[in-house]
């Protein structure tokens, strides 16, 4: 038995490989046909060898449970790749670069003259109530004028076939290590496909990241770059260790660093102190420096903000960058692109309603059963209401929350995410996916080729988070025609 694309298609879904009539889409024909030459048994064998490779490479993620504390689980990777046509990808890439440039302009503006507010592009109330605006950052000039050096934007494809930006993560976005590990595993699993199709490589990322970070160093020719982690029990520790290893940097914790009275940062080594120039920090602002933010934080480094403000050390991402990582600010990004860059946005936003605005709030309250309502400052899918699936009671409770604190919420129509063929042990079926590319900003802007595709493994589910049973796929940017 092999994959039968004719019977694979399901009505009411937008599948990226196959039309509703069961025909492979243009740009997918050769690979699609290639996949249907494998028998189910052959796919099964490949899937088993893929899982072995994950285990051997030690690709894990951490989950918490009451009973066992934190446990390392094998990273879930699906056998079937997510494919993006190169032509479409070039537009997405340009759209992401444009977006992140505008976001960096916005952050810099918000901590300086706030022109965008004076010019009426961004309503003042958004800033007044922002949970991620850091008064400590006002007037600071980070190197190159860049605040968000590493951005992870989430993209989804709707049933109209168009890619939309769902959100921009400007604080400490994670997942890029899995994008890189997925590729390594897939190359071992399907060597013949990599030999015969023009699949674009992804492995430039660690050295691009390293170069981006080095370019931030104040003065020194051979800068010391370190990765700052909250520690081994953080759920993204695998990635912190992975990136440090790939870049050949030290992986430090807060307790490994000290700041002296000259505002210089040092790490404590077996040979005494060593000066640190650039910190790729994977800790939230609030835990960065107990002198400046959360006094009770044990994770942070006292004096780090002082050192950063004095320009003695570079922090990536810069403190306060999260001000633009706000789902209400998100709604204005297309306007901000026009305003700062004088360009038309290349990638659309998902249509959004800002609950802080009266008419939009009323629309949301009246149509809550059709909408997804999100708190503006949360990430990872926490605190959301999925209107169409919620009970009347839950909807009512959410209406009250919105009325109590409208600034804290925005809403979007429930998207019907596109699907991609996914291997389920006995069959290949469509499952919903999203995409997180990573964008580096320094002297230039670089976008990963593709990104991390996450997939909801349960039939009909839209939840792609790995902590909630989601899986992942390798993402292939491809120019069909073979090699």
């Amino acid at each position, binding site marked *: 038995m092999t994959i039968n694309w004719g019977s694979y298609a399901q009505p009411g879904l937008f599948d990226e490989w196959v039309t509703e009539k069961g025909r492979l889409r243009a740009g997918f024909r050769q690979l699609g046909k290639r996949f249907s030459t494998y028998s189910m048994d052959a796919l099964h064998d490949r899937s088993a060898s893929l899982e072995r490779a994950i285990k051997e490479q030690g690709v894990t993620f951490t989950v918490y449970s009451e009973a066992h504390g934190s446990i390392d689980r094998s990273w879930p990777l699906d056998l079937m790749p997510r494919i993006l046509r190169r032509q479409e990808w070039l537009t997405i890439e340009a759209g992401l670069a444009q977006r992140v440039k505008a976001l960096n302009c916005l952050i810099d503006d918000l901590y300086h003259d706030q022109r965008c507010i004076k010019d009426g592009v961004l309503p003042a109330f958004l800033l007044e109530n922002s949970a991620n605006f850091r008064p400590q950052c006002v007037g600071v000039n980070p190197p190159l004028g860049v605040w968000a050096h590493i951005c992870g934007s989430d993209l989804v494809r709707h049933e109209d076939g168009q890619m939309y930006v769902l959100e921009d993560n400007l604080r400490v976005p994670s997942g890029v290590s899995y994008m890189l590990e997925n590729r390594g595993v897939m190359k071992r699993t399907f060597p013949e496909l990599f030999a015969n199709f023009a699949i674009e490589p992804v492995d430039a990322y660690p050295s691009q990241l390293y170069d981006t970070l080095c370019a931030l160093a104040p003065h020194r020719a051979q800068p010391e770059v370190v990765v700052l982690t909250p520690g*081994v029990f953080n759920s993204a520790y695998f990635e912190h260790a992975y990136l440090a290893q790939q870049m050949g940097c030290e992986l430090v914790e807060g307790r490994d660093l000290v700041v002296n*009275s000259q505002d210089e940062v040092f*790490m404590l080594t*077996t040979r*005494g102190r060593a000066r640190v120039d650039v910190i790729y920090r994977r800790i939230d602002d609030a835990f960065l420096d107990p002198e400046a933010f959360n006094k009770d934080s044990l994770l942070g480094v006292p*004096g780090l903000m002082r050192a950063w403000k004095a320009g003695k050390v570079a922090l990536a991402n810069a403190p306060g960058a999260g001000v633009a990582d706000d789902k209400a600010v998100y709604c204005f990004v297309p306007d901000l692109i026009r305003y700062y860059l004088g360009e038309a946005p290349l990638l659309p936003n998902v249509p959004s309603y800002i609950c802080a605005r009266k008419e939009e709030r009323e629309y949301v309250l009246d149509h809550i059963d059709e909408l997804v309502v999100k708190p503006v400052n949360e990430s990872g899918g926490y605190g959301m209401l999925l209107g169409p699936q919620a009970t009347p009671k839950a909807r009512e409770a959410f209406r009250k929350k919105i009325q109590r604190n409208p600034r804290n919420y925005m809403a979007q129509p429930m998207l019907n995410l596109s699907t991609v063929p996914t291997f389920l042990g006995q069959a290949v079926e469509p499952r919903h996916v999203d995409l997180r590319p990573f964008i580096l900003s320094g002297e230039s802007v670089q976008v990963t080729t593709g990104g991390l595709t996450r997939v909801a493994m349960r039939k009909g589910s839209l939840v792609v988070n790995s902590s909630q049973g989601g899986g992942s796929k390798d993402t292939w940017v491809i120019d069909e025609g073979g090699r």
Partner: protein
Amino acid sequence: MLARVAENMYWMARYLERAEDLARLIDVTTHLHLDLPRGSTPSWGTLLTLVGAEESYREKHGTAEDEGRVLRFLLGDKDHPQSLRAAIAAARSNARGFREVFPREAWEDINGLYHFSQEQLKSGLSKRGRHTYLRGIITRVQTVVGRLEGAMNRDEAYYFIELGRQLERADMTTRLIDSSSARLVPQEGSGGARFDDLQWMSVLKSLTGYQMYRLEMQRAIRSESVLAFLFQSSRFPRSVAGALLALRRSLEALDPDASLPRRLPQVLRQVSQLEPEGLAGEKLHALIDELQQGFADIHGQLERRYFRPSRSADPETAS
């Protein structure tokens, strides 16, 4: 390298060595007890004294020192650091802190050791399963050690692991020697002398040193020659001198220009100059106490030099 990471490596190695030596000690004691003359009661409490766990045991179980309870405590107790289980868990949690600079397979081996020690514990507590369990632990520790030996660059990381392993080994060997002064075998009744030999033999075997002793000393088991071998042999890797010399070599490789921690040459001299003739009982015990204090001092000196750089903002002015 980072002081914190170096300290993690050092402690991981100490705990691994401790686990292995504990397993050896318990295994050999169990076998020795099977050879006791009928009518004499083996003293399991002595094991507690040897590993320095007497007090925490008393707090938990009082003075009843039966085999089942003592072994449950030494193999499976979670709360005191001298149990096999706690040592392995501590080795693993230290190893977690430096996965990025550690051979991946070694981390998997440590995980395997940890899961084995937990999952097979029940069988390890049974009389029949004990030997297999303890051999399983020893083999798994040896696998990790071999993996590191074969896969790690001879750089700082490697030498900090060596320091921990060798210092713990010197310490555990003195504890095993101490078992003869502590009298695992009660002396009442006839045959005391014969069982003295038996006991020395079991100490040697616990260090896999019986064959090596024969090869090196070429003589029958006699108290003073066993003591000379276990304290002073520079060829036997588990002798006190053997471990301390390896420690010295690692320190010299780590820091060729630095002076040795002051206490190391002193302790080495004390070991090479000790006179095994007539060394027994209280006198032996007192000597071992003194050596163990020396090991603790060496540890303190390593800690100050490598693991605890000053955290004050400006150490030059803070004095």
